[in-house]
């Protein structure tokens, strides 16, 4: 008889997420439901506020992709007010964005997704000498894999494992699971990189803080440009950026890249990782101005996995609906006109497979009703996958030379066919390829900034907001988790309506009115689970999307009032005009 399996909380992500699947006697997932279990309401809070306050507030959507919302929110307001941002500011924004991509992707692989691929306990039985030699198979300049270094890593974690208190943060995971494929030596190499990456993420964060003041939540963008003019005019700070950038690029090229090659080699025969994905529609947006009118990544839409055709994005075709989301207005809405009224219906009583395999009483998702705080975004009525894989596929199919080269090299080195990119492995590999493209090319922007500063030191455009005029605008671009768009209407000098359609909403959204599933849910269907009490396969698929759930949840009004009825008390200085 079919059984429910619930994974909640899904850890090692940003935010609160539940996956619930129905599994047949053969262990194959028949149906899947993914739910966000937290709502915060920032877009409601934005209403009535001064547009200049909004980018800093929208940045608080997420402390992981901490720069993404700040940048796209700023761009949305600049678009609405028709502001032309100085070239210097555009390039500095690119440099900060490079820092974010070079931070986010390695952290995702090593600290969030990594232990889905790497069995830490198995690393303890590795031969460090053999592992050290093996590292050269994947790169000529391995990092952190000297024999002595690997020995130390092994001893350190070994002590942990002997500890009667267990493995600390590594405790009680699915070690020894049948779908782990690395040899003990490969596990040890990756474990060493896990620890190394903990150090490197601090360097990457500093890279952003050089021009951004701090990370998380940098604070040097304003509507019109950037404020860090002293920093870009300071050669010592510029030098600091360059040196730290190169250190990070070295880690990406000589640890992250080879580890993914290693993963492709070992996992390309693991069915749960190579299972074809459920949604084969992809959308990505251009990003990374590295020179005048020159972007590193391309815009476009690919339908049904057809790489022979890349369509242009038509922004009018973007909608969100709430048929299975805890909001009242079900019909598809364009984000400029998005409404969100609450309709929390909760869970239903039932049972699911418990930790020891017995059925236990649980709260279950009611799949016939509403079941998530995430809406269902659609493009021309279709579910779409966004993310590094979409960006890489769009660039590859568009003939972007830089992208074609890294994809070609990767396929050649691993012997994986291009079709295999449409899988969990492909998604994880594409994230690394995107990080590599940034690491290999973002200093072009750095050099162009230096050249431009010789003749032009402008960093911020001036503007006025006419209280008698209505404005609307959007900021769209590619962020580490995929295509992000912020949509704003301004009226009477304050925010009239605000919507963010974010990557994790595209990927993690529930079913739509036609029963079409979003990428997470569609990907889980057909997955064979070896052990219902240790559903590692589910977690591995979900993690491959790099879920960012605080980003993905949408607005609503708890009292069921019309949103436009909010009257702002003049006492609240931040809200008054």
């Amino acid at each position, binding site marked *: 008889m079919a059984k429910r399996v*619930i*994974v*909640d*909380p*899904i*850890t090692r*992500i*940003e935010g*609160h997420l539940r996956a619930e699947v129905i599994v047949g006697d053969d262990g194959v997932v028949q149906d899947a439901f993914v739910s966000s*279990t937290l*709502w*915060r309401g920032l877009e409601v*809070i934005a209403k009535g506020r*001064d547009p*200049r*306050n909004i980018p*800093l*507030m929208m940045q*608080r959507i997420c*402390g992981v992709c901490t720069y993404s919302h700040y940048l796209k929110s700023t761009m949305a307001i600049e678009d609405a007010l028709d502001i032309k941002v100085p070239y210097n500011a555009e390039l500095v924004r690119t440099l900060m964005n490079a820092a974010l991509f070079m931070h986010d992707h390695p952290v995702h692989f090593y600290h969030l997704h990594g*232990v889905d691929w790497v069995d830490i306990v198995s690393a303890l039985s590795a031969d460090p000498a053999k592992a050290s030699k093996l590292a050269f198979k994947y790169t000529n300049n391995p990092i952190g894999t000297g024999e002595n270094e690997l020995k130390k890593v092994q*001893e350190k974690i070994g*002590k942990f494992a002997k*500890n009667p*208190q267990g493995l*600390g*943060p590594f*405790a*009680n995971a699915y070690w020894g699971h049948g779908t782990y494929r690395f040899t003990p030596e490969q596990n040890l190499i990756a474990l060493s990189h896990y620890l190394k990456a903990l150090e490197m*993420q*601090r360097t990457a964060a500093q890279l952003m*803080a050089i021009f951004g*003041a*701090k*990370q*998380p939540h940098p604070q040097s963008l*304003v509507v*019109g*440009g950037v*404020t*860090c*003019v*002293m*920093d870009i*005019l300071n050669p010592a700070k510029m030098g600091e950026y360059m040196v730290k950038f190169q250190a990070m690029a070295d880690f990406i090229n000589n640890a992250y890249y080879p580890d993914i090659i290693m993963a492709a080699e070992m996992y390309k025969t693991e069915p749960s990782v190579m299972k074809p994905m459920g949604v084969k529609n992809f959308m990505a947006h251009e990003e990374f101005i590295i020179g005048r009118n020159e972007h590193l990544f391309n815009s476009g839409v690919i339908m049904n996995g057809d790489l022979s055709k890349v369509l242009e994005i038509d922004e009018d075709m973007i909608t969100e609906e709430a048929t299975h989301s805890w909001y009242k207005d079900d019909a598809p809405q364009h984000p400029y006109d998005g409404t969100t009224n609450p309709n*929390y219906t909760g*869970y239903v009583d039932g049972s*699911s497979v418990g*930790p020891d395999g017995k059925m236990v009483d649980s709260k279950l998702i009611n799949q016939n009703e509403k079941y998530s705080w995430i809406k269902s975004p659609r493009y021309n009525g279709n579910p779409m996958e966004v993310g590094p894989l979409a960006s890489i596929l769009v660039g590859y199919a568009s003939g972007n030379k830089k992208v074609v080269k890294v994809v070609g090299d990767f396929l050649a080195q691993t012997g994986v066919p291009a079709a295999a990119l449409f899988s969990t492995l492909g998604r994880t590999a594409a994230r690394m390829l995107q990080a590599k493209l940034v690491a290999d090319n973002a200093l072009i922007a750095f050099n162009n900034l230096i050249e431009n500063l010789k003749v032009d*030191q402008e960093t911020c*455009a001036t503007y006025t907001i006419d209280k008698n005029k209505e404005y609307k605008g959007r900021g769209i671009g590619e962020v580490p988790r995929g295509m992000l768009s912020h949509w704003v209407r301004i009226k009477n000098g304050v925010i009239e309506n605000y919507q963010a359609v974010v990557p994790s909403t595209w990927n993690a959204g529930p079913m739509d009115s036609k029963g079409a599933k979003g990428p997470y849910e569609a990907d889980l269907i057909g997955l064979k689970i070896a052990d219902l*009490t240790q559903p590692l396969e589910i977690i591995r698929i979900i993690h491959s999307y790099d879920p960012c759930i*605080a980003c993905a949840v949408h*607005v609503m009004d*708890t009292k069921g009032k019309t949103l436009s009825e909010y009257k702002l008390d003049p*006492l*609240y*200085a*931040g*809200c008054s005009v």
Partner: protein
Amino acid sequence: MENKALFEKLSSRLDELSNLPKLDDEKSISRLIEEKGFSRREFMGWAGAMTSMLMLPASFTPLVAKAAEMADRLPLVWLHMAECTGCSESLLRTATPSIDSLIFDYISLEYHETIMSAAGWQAEHNLESAMERYKGKYILMVEGGIPHGESDFYLTIGAHGKTGEKIAREASENAAAIFAIGTCSSFGGVQAAYPNPTNATALSNITNKSVINVPGCPPSESNIVGTLLHFILYGTLPALDAYNRPKWAYGLRIHDACERRGRFDAGEFVEQFGDDGAKNGYCLYKVGCKGPYTFNNCSKQRFNQGTSWPVQAGHGCMGCSEPDFWDKMGIVHEPLGNRLYHTVFGGLGSDATADKIGVGILTVTAVGIAAHAAISLIKKPKE
């Protein structure tokens, strides 16, 4: 003499702690330091820096070092409520070499959703067993505001659909100390800004236990780690201000130690972003800096191992460690001026004294600001 008494008190506290059973005999900070290739000298250098950050006399350095070595005795439970994970990210950046990350490793981290390997039932089990095994002994750190009251269902966790409020309340019940990390758990944060659609609230509003607030959006890595050390040293709550913030970190205004303070006093102001004043590091007050109203040590500690901080990057402080700053601090890029600094309590916030002092000082300088502003305009270099 006062120092001597304090020294003795701390020493006996540490003796007391050292008599507690270790969580693990195999590991100690100093041993790990050796393994990581750090010298004792480097470690003591770090302890010295920490001592001065905690505003203790330099003679206390050995005690701080001892406290750090005993950090592994403390089981830590970290909960995520309505949040953005920025505070966890800040913790991961912990300052100076990897020494702070050792402390992070060597606290017995029992539950932390962003970092832990376990998921689902196994994750829930880790939390429950830590709360049971270390009843009355674990440190609780909470990140995020808490959807509260009839709307607590805005956050549920686990197969039983438990609300965040319930989980936070239960975890608070038997914690040895409770730290609200970040402005969200300290004061409700961004989701609690008007009109607070989820009725998000501070951790202190859902538990009767004492809560130490470590606000900031996010707080710097040194404020998070420093607060923890303070607890280990004293075994009691640190001296707090009216908002339950540790005085050692939040005792001074940003403005008091600001690198651009001289520009403020000289009446040299950035008039708009990108102007000549901005290129020359003039004061950011007129483009909205809230440093004069904000209590935090950013101007001393900075962020990301001292890399920078908002004023250095030309932006100005937004007041993120103050309660309800999204609503109270006005427009980010306009000065508050000498207008009454409102709180949600009608100008009588729980730190009214500090508010009045802040406003008072600005009122005194307001005349100067006006005069200097005129001067700085006149003095504006030719294009």
